[in-house]
């Protein structure tokens, strides 16, 4: 048989019917729903008199819009409250499982899906959120969709999807000190550019990726969208199966064994042909910091803010200048001389237990610098929060002067009260440094959890990779 890529295997398994040469009607196995991109979809169902095709595939929670100070009592902002309440109404009306605020299982959809075993290898997973690529860490074909597509999946369990090209990113070598999956993916986005992965399913492989935990693999797949790719994948191995065993929605007993047998085939065959390949030497990576307003605008922490005059392409040069103006940075400034006002540790990129452990390891025994007005730690789910508290990480953060919050998307996009004020600068473990992303006029520097914690203590970026 012709060797096949992991993407080919997942794609062909889900084709219900073809629509034209390269577009297929794909079956959807798991649909994650949250409050912001679903109300209009439920309303569409209602207006057309339709019902969900398979309600047992849908799992809902509130994450984008929820306060992180307390999950008990009423949400103060009336618009946020209405959206969260509407999700509750819609789930009750259509018979959909909801993890409401206050439930320990509530959290960011891309954290709770895997945590519950709602994400399994071989599935197609969709959500009305671009970071759905996260779930590809489990060898699931997972991608973000718009609200009309949310409605389409609810009504039909299917979605017309254009076949993607395949890109294999082979990462080999040991990650140097201070370098994490976050730095690896920021480096990849810098190489590919923000549209370099457009139309692609990226498979991450190589010994470095094999050596990452599921948390690290999720961070990697999460940000593939920032390189323009809708889908990211990591093949199944023992790390995948160990993570899933015993999760509430994972199969049990004989079904677990049967599932594992199939899941172990979810790897690219030897000799499978990809449309493109990219080699990354992990040993050459450095801790990364973004300086601009696009996730491709990053440099190693021991580097400097680049000079637009060195850019030949006029469109790119204008874009760089605009980014520097927005970020209030001068070309040539050492990254370690940049002094953020706030620190945010959280988001679907970096709010899992391993991320909190990495940040706590730096924060332990330290003290948040006087120049940092706020250092927020927002766990990705109620269960992550409980686990961190069982390990005493909350005490480490609180004693160092960080704020320990309830789970949600929080300052990644600032839909709740956690947002930057005009001109404020933030070291953030989130995924987007777009203008205004964390608050109107806010300035975002994307970093790993360890770097964010180091910034909180030092008041500026720190070369956490340098020998002590």
């Amino acid at each position: 048989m012709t060797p096949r890529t992991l993407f080919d295997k997942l794609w062909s398994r889900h084709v219900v019917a073809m629509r034209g040469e390269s577009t297929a009607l794909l079956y959807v196995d798991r649909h994650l729903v949250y409050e912001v991109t679903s109300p209009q979809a439920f309303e569409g169902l209602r207006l057309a008199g339709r019902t969900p095709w398979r309600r047992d595939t849908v799992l809902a929670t509130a994450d984008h819009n929820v306060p992180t100070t307390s999950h008990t009592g009423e949400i103060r902002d009336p618009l946020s409250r209405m959206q969260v309440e509407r999700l509750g109404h819609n789930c009750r009306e259509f018979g959909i499982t909801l993890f409401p605020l206050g439930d320990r299982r509530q959290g960011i959809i891309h954290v709770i899906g895997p945590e519950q075993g709602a994400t399994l290898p071989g599935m197609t997973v969709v959500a009305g959120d671009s970071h759905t690529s996260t779930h590809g860490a489990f060898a699931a074909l997972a991608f973000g969709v718009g609200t009309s597509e949310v409605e389409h999946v609810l009504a039909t369990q299917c979605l017309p999807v254009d076949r993607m090209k395949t890109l294999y990113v082979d990462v080999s070598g040991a990650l140097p000190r201070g370098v994490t999956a976050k730095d690896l993916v920021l480096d990849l986005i810098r190489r590919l550019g923000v549209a370099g992965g457009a139309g692609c399913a990226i498979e991450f492989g190589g010994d470095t990726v094999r050596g990452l935990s599921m948390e690290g693999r999720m961070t990697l797949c999460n940000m593939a969208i920032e390189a323009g790719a809708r889908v990211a994948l990591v093949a199944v191995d023992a790390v995948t199966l160990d993570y899933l065993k015993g999760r509430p929605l994972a199969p049990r007993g004989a079904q677990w064994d049967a599932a594992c047998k199939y899941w172990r085939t979810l790897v690219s065959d030897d000799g499978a042909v990809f449309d493109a390949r990219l080699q990354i030497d992990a040993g050459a990576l450095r801790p990364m910091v973004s300086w601009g307003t696009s996730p491709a605008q990053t440099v190693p922490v021991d580097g400097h803010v680049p000079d637009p005059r060195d850019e030949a392409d006029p469109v790119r040069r204008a874009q760089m200048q605009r980014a520097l103006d927005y970020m209030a940075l001068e070309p040539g400034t050492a990254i370690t001389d940049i002094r953020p006002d706030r620190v945010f540790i959280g988001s679907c990129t970096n709010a899992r237990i391993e991320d909190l452990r990495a940040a706590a390891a730096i924060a332990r025994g330290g003290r948040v610098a006087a120049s940092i007005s706020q250092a927020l730690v927002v766990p990705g789910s109620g269960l992550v929060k409980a686990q961190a508290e069982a390990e005493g990480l909350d005490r480490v953060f609180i004693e160092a002067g960080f704020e320990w919050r309830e789970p949600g998307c929080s300052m990644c996009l600032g839909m709740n009260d956690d947002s930057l004020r005009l001109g404020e600068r933030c070291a953030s473990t989130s995924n987007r440094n777009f203008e205004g992303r964390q608050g109107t006029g806010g300035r975002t520097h994307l970093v790993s959890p360890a770097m964010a914690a180091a910034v909180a203590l030092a008041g500026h970026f720190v070369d956490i990779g340098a020998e002590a």
Partner: protein
Amino acid sequence: MQPFTALTSHVAPLDRADVDTDALIPKQFMKSIARTGFGDNLFDAWRYRDPGYPGKPQSAREPEPDFVLNRPSCKCAQILLARDNFGCGSSREHALWALADYGFRVIVAPSFADIFFNNCFKNGVLPVVLPTRQIDRLFADIGDGRKDYRVTVDLAEQTLRLPDGEVLGFEVDAYRKHCLLHGLDDIALTLQQADDIRAYELRRRTLEPWLFPA
């Protein structure tokens, strides 16, 4: 969905690459549970000097005169011209609802982000991909957008007719074109294949029974 057949309109030139959906519609406006009413906040942070929030009256807003949509000639433009990777970032369809509510029916760029591109077709908006050299030429012809520059877009013919009479062709997927021309409900089309979907589920259930709990 509103069908799209053809239109003639002034073109608003937005000379930026990687325009993200956070810029198209900032998050504070995504708390709405409706599909309408987003047009006033399209490009909010670029279009106004004062910070915007939901429900702020238009009379209290302070337009940024340098922003392209605030030029008198561009006020009624239904065609938006932009650079590469338009609509990147968040999947929020609110970006399309804002563009359509404002009045844009066509977006012309060298490339689009995937999710945004799909969302266009669900909202009666036509994304037109042209080679970079043609995009460069359009930006050069239009200049700062102050002079009248009318382009006719014809979906059936898959053409753009420029003011000087030149005609540029563009590609569009046949199925999407059909849906857009007739304003078809995508979901109804898929539900015509309900038997295929059920047959697929039966096959799949035997292969991966753990995905179909009783």
